[in-house]
């Protein structure tokens, strides 16, 4: 394993790094003093309601507005034609290939709608009720066009999702280890393999389902336009609004106040944001749009939705020889901000923790008449992890080998780091043996295997399966150079400022934009640790482009590993500056000063000056050294040199009721290695929430459409977000190998639970009933699907 990197250097009696500090964010949230966007009321504020297409693909032939415009309280009713000159086309920031095809995407459709729920008109009225009432009066005539809902069917181009495009294919993106020089030819490798296992796996379409529906308030009064939005990305949103609408960026201020969850679902520039801004500008009055949950489920961007055609080769001893991945990725009807790049983020992760020599990845990005897909917790990496971990289990079955033994034969040993992977990444550190050994012990792997055998032998109604998932992910998005090489429009740096106030309190301004992650607490810990000031004296400011002028926001488990490092770097600059002043004040040489516990001491003496004394001296500026500006502010931008690679081993004991198909998580153990941890309490919370979403993909959630293109699971009645009784108690632990890509050794934790848990659950379900002849079940593994799989296996006599 790698050695510990330089760690926090000013640890006092009670070091902040590694301490479960209670959250600063909580006070306002537990008392109802929250500031979610929909809470906002501005003088003269108008309300918007959207008129949405009921059809998944249609030509708009006429829109009759007379009645709606005459309705009480209505200020305006606008169509796509009305907004054509100003609304532009919603941005896609990731053209994955130079020849990527994408239809224009006006916020309000003008001629054609390509998914059910697309906006065709907007009502602006004095109240939300008046707007909704009037929206019902807008009469739109459509000529229905053929719809293509199924991804595999869309790939054939038999029906086109857009009449303006000649094919449903947006782009084809390929990685080949032989061509890239990172490995050998997959064809040769598979041809030379003793066994080749081939499977087609399905990632169902998921809905992020953050608890706070999206909401936007735009205030056009004054000299600039201020947008409050329930977004993860105030900074990116500001740039994109400027580019899309041609408004000078300096005239735009974007504020993300309290944001009620995102999970990638609020990493978007939405039609509703554009429309609310344009409406406010036209009316000269603040405008608000808050979506209903039904609208949110229908049109907020979705996630996953891929078909994964997998081939894995191995020797008869179980050494993997190569992996071929051929993906169809459902873009939905339009390309959102990073829709096209989501499957590519997975491309580097299919090899996971294994060290086989040959790898080929091909992805076809395909349009359908469904809402757009884009980032959802994990974004590309859960898909990759699911596929490889399912394939490892299939291979273990083929070779009649324990799935953990097969993994161990193929994973990178801890002595082999840093390791250049066949997908072209360099994994810096990791210790898969340690995490797995700990998980196996906590899980009682052998005991549960014995119980599984007992139930099998007894023909028990409730069978037991053990699901294994060993995973790694690339976090800390991202080194800007790498993003450039992948044609992503932006960089991956993060920015921070540290400002020392006259009283010695410290303001930390971060470009990260937390929406539940606890940055106000964790960043306070970082700065308290560095500057030696009390945790309580640090204030973290974020989520407002006027306060935090530069930033790239929060997603991709990047905040600590990138944003946190910018904070540390800014804090270090403050120390350097304070040192100059301290030396001057104490009439000592800088070289003779030590900085510990928030004070500079002249080495070998009792002479010292505290941080707050220096702060006040700077404020008064009566006695500054020559040429030193009287402030203790600094800023820093951090651009990582590499991704970070959290990993872990997750084990799930799954009970399957063979009579009903009902599946239950009996025991769930996860051991995650996310490097050095700042706040273990927050980390554990992230793991819990991640597990819940990953388990839910495996068992509960799916966006289901009928043949006409209507979302059938269009409310929380049918889109099953699990409740407290539906999820297990998680047993969590950590191992720790520090990352080398940042000075703290942190790796990121936001997505780990989601990425690892889905395959653990599905592998466990299959392990429970594989002896009954079931070899695959599509997600979510509903009781009905499990039961039908069991019946089919029974009718074909399919015991292997």
């Amino acid at each position, binding site marked *: 394993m790698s050695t510990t990197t330089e760690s926090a250097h000013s640890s006092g009696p009670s070091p902040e790094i590694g301490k479960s500090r209670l959250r600063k964010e909580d006070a306002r949230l537990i008392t109802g003093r929250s500031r979610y966007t929909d809470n906002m009321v501005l003088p003269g504020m108008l309300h918007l309601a959207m008129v949405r297409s009921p059809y998944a693909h249609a030509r708009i032939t006429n829109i009759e507005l007379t009645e709606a415009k005459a309705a009480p309280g209505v200020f305006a009713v606008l169509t796509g034609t009305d907004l054509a000159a100003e609304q532009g086309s919603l941005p896609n920031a990731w053209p994955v290939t130079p020849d990527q095809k994408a239809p224009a995407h006006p916020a309000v459709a003008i001629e054609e709608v390509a998914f059910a729920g697309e906006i065709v008109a907007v009502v602006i009225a004095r109240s939300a009720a008046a707007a909704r009432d009037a929206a019902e009066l807008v009469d739109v005539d459509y000529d229905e066009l053929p719809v293509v809902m199924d991804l595999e069917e869309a790939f054939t181009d038999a029906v086109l999702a857009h009449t303006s495009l000649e094919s449903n294919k947006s782009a084809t993106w390929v990685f080949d280890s032989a061509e890239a020089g990172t490995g050998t030819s997959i064809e040769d490798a598979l041809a030379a393999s003793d066994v080749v296992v081939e499977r087609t796996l399905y990632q169902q379409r998921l809905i992020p389902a953050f608890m706070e529906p999206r909401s936007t308030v735009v205030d056009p009064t004054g000299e600039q336009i201020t947008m409050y939005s329930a977004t993860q990305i105030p900074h990116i949103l500001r740039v994109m609004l400027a580019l899309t609408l041609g408004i000078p960026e300096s005239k735009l201020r974007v504020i993300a106040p309290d944001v009620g969850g995102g999970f990638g679902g609020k990493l978007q520039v939405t039609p509703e944001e554009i429309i609310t801004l344009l409406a406010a500008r036209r009316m000269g009055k603040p405008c608000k749009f808050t979506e209903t949950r039904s609208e949110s489920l229908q049109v907020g961007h979705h996630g996953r939705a891929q078909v994964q055609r997998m081939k894995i080769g191995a020797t008869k001893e179980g050494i993997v020889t190569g992996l071929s991945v051929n993906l169809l990725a459902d873009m939905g009807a339009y390309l959102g901000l990073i829709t096209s790049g989501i499957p590519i983020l997975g491309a580097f992760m299919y090899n996971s923790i294994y060290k086989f020599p040959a790898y080929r990845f091909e992805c076809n990005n395909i349009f359908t008449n469904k809402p757009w897909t884009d980032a959802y917790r994990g974004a590309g990496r859960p898909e990759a992890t699911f596929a490889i971990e399912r394939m490892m289990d299939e291979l273990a079955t083929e070779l009649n080998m324990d799935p953990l033994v097969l993994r161990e034969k193929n994973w990178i040993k801890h002595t082999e780091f840093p390791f250049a992977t066949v997908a072209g990444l360099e994994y810096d550190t990791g210790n898969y043996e340690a995490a797995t050994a700990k998980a196996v012990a906590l899980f009682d792997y052998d005991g549960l295997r014995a119980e599984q055998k007992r139930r099998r032998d007894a023909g028990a109604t409730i069978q037991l399966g053990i699901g294994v998932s060993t995973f790694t992910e690339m976090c800390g998005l991202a080194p800007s150079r790498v993003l450039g090489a992948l044609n992503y429009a932006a960089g991956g740096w993060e920015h921070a400022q540290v400002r020392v106030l006259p009283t010695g309190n410290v303001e930390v301004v971060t470009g990260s934009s937390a929406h539940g992650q606890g940055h106000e607490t964790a960043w306070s810990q970082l700065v308290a640790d560095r500057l030696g000031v009390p945790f309580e004296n640090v204030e973290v400011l974020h989520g407002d482009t006027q306060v935090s002028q530069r930033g790239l926001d929060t997603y991709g488990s990047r905040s600590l590993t990138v944003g946190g490092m910018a904070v540390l770097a800014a804090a270090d600059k403050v120390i350097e500056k304070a040192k100059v002043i301290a030396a001057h004040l104490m009439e000592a040489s800088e070289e003779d000063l030590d900085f510990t516990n928030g004070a500079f001491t002249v080495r070998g003496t009792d002479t010292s000056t505290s941080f707050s004394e220096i702060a006040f001296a700077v404020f008064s500026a009566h006695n500054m050294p020559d040429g030193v500006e009287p402030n203790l502010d600094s800023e820093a931008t951090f651009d990582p040199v590499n991704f970070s690679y959290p990993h872990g081993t997750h084990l799930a004991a799954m009970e399957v009721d063979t009579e009903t198909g009902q599946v239950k998580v009996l025991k769930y153990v996860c051991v995650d290695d996310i490097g050095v941890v700042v706040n273990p309490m927050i980390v554990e919370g992230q793991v819990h929430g991640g597990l819940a979403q990953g388990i839910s993909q495996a068992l509960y959630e799916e966006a289901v459409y009928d043949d006409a293109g209507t979302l059938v699971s269009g409310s929380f009645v049918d889109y099953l977000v699990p*409740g407290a009784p539906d999820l297990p108690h998680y047993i969590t632990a950590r191992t720790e190998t520090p990352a080398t890509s940042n000075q703290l050794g942190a790796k990121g934790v936001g997505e780990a639970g989601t990425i690892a848990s889905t395959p653990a659950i599905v592998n466990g379900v299959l392990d429970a009933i594989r002896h009954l002849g079931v070899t695959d079940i599509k997600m979510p593994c509903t009781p009905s699907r499990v039961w039908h799989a069991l019946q089919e296996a029974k009718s074909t006599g399919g015991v292997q």
Partner: protein
Amino acid sequence: MIPSAFDYAAPTTVEEALALLAGADASGDDVKLLAGGQSLIPVMKLRLADPSLVVDLGRIPGLSGITDNGSSLTIGAMTPHHVMATDPLIAAHVPLLSQAAATVADPQVRHRGTFGGALVHADPAGDMPAPALAMDAVFNITGPAGPRSVEAAGFFQGYFTTAVEEGEILTSITVPKFDGWGSHYEKFTRVAQQWSIVAVAALVRVEGGVIAEARLGLTNMASTPLRASATEAALAGCAVDAEAIAAACAHAAEGTDPASDLNGDAAYRRHLATVVARRAVLAAVGLQGTRG
């Protein structure tokens, strides 16, 4: 999230309510009775229901509560599910109703939603109709022509349709006491807060180690709740024995016509009915290992 506008009336007597209904009928108004509102208000928010008049029964005294009639209980239509689930009289004499009421939706909904409201709403996946049917409840209805009573067998007439005619109000439900019977409501869902995929209400009377009589109500196996008549017949005289009970419950789906939806197709529901029925009966007779 914002219902269409409507007129609202909150009568304080049943007579006043009936007069409002009669008036609405005369003027052609689309009127809805508001009981607990836990099914009505959601569909109004989605604008799937747009009544022009809502008559709130919540201000009429005497429509909720439980009366002991000796051999039966009369339960006010406006009695909330939460009271159904916790009332000692119900627990003592008709525990099947407590068991079923405790599975309805979630605690908040059970605080507002009412027994009568759920019965008149008659959602095929609702949990209260099947037990009422199994118990041969009597539905006390008041209308322009005065009060009348309808037997359970004739009450549930179709998808969201009951014997309560326009202009009428269900005021109470009378259920015979089932003292000495075993009972259980077995509900099958994917997540806790979900309508029943299939559920079975079981009442079993055991005499001398033999099942003397069994009544089974099926939830969500057709557009209305159904009795599992073939299973009831097969259970009569059956030993209190897991295998015998299983054999009888294998008939549970006979005569049913379940829907296919996201939670399962009709074939799956027919199969589930047999398993859920068996588990309900085993629990009702107190046999351990209902998952046997």
